[in-house]
């Protein structure tokens, strides 16, 4: 199995609408000065069919820790369900919120010990009082790496160069939120397995904020046109640049 199998379109058989639910996906997590912002697209596909165009790929693990999921929808749902369950017990027993490090290591534990059966690439992000905002990457295989920012999913292939170029440490919350929306929407523009809306979750000392950027509110990129209601509106507005021979 190689890296390219993260793309959703692996079932090239006669039924392009069957197969396991995969989240082709673009997922991103960045640290900013005071917390973290997690972002993801919303497309879940089975083969070539978009099974859910508004999925929520950022799942809550505790009040202060969330996880971005990419890969098999079923695998990542089950992992996050188990981790949520463990962390709930852990919180009761320790009497205080779980740290981001503990949450991400639980994700790693499941990913590593079941590595032959799972296809799950995850980014865990959150805030705790000991280390502030943290992002942990848990790719296929169960490696765990803490990073100032992380990208994952099939759409992330298109973001490596962009992040190398544009990432800066110590952004403000507003800059970070704008940045992740830009970055995910650029991946959506080129990755067939990513699409829909951009969801973001901002986590800091004050709590959690969820945002929603619908597809029609995202910036336009190269070769994309301003959406219209109908050709008729364009014609009514006066002669357009008609391509007349």
């Amino acid at each position, binding site marked *: 199995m190689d890296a390219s199998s993260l793309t959703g379109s692996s079932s090239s058989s006669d039924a392009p609408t069957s197969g396991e639910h995969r989240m082709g996906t673009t997922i991103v997590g960045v640290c900013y000065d005071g917390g973290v912002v997690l972002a993801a697209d919303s497309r879940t596909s089975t083969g070539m069919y978009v099974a859910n165009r508004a999925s929520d790929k950022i799942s809550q693990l505790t009040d202060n820790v969330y996880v971005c999921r990419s890969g098999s929808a079923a695998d990542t749902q089950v992992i996050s369900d188990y981790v949520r369950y463990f962390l709930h017990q852990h919180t009761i027993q320790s009497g205080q919120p779980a740290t981001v490090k503990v949450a991400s290591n639980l994700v790693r534990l499941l990913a590593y010990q079941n590595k032959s059966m799972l296809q799950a690439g995850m980014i865990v992000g959150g805030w705790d009082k000991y280390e502030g905002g943290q992002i942990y990457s848990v790719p296929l295989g169960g*490696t765990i790496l803490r990073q100032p920012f992380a990208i994952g999913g099939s759409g992330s292939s298109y973001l490596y160069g962009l992040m190398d170029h544009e990432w800066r440490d110590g952004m403000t919350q507003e800059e970070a939120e704008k940045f992740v929306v830009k970055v995910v929407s650029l991946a959506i523009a080129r990755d067939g397995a990513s699409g829909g809306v951009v969801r973001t979750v901002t986590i800091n000392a004050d709590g959690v904020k969820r945002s929603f950027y619908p597809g029609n509110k995202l910036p336009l990129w190269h070769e994309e046109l301003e959406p219209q209601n109908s050709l008729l509106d364009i014609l009514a507005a006066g002669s357009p640049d008609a391509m007349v021979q």
Partner: protein
Amino acid sequence: MDGSHANAASAPAAAGGGEGTQRTLNPYVTGNSVIAMKYKDGVIMACDTGASYGSTLRYKSVERIKAVGKHSLIGGSGEFSDFQEILRYLDELTLSDHMWDDGNSLGPKEIHAYLTRVMYNRRNKFDPLWNSLVLGGVKKGPKGDEKYLGMVNMIGTHFEENHIATGFGNHMAVPILRGEWREDLTFEEAVKLIEKCLLVLLYRDRSSINKFQIAKITTEGSTIYPPYALKTNWGFSAFENPSQGAVGTW
């Protein structure tokens, strides 16, 4: 001591009660070559700080050399999640060693023997830890300070040598080391020699990156130096216009 280390599937296997028998897999996130050699004061070890995901150079600031106890360094190439797990096993090992509180501490030879058993037993179950590990260190023995350097890989092949390289380094660095290594290298000479090997790997190994870490271990203890990059040389006149006399040449 306890066999549970070697059986990864038996640990809190929450996903359905321990039926996770792993079989030989493919590695996902992989680290590159590790080079090491004995020198006058101890052992020196180096590697790049990259971890690849297939052909993508995905993670570029990864530490693949770690200190083990007071006397050893371990360098790992191959599947990074397995290397992280091995580091956890070594933490458990050194912790119980410390808790004996008997004035002894495990030396590099013992750690190497332990790792060899772990790797070979996993291989026998067709469930290998997909790594090549380099274990180096210095410990006081009956003949004074004894330097030790060995390696063990995913199929359990293990040996001791004066100089070791894993992965591509086997092909590119070992010939250089065989020609130029000497017993009495100073630290400066050893660094120069290792940098020569690192540079050759940078030029010729597609998965290497220009960010390296060198570590040394002596009787005083271990030092892992901060990451740095090497200058590369492209100033050959033959590089400038290779197609001039033969259009279409590569």
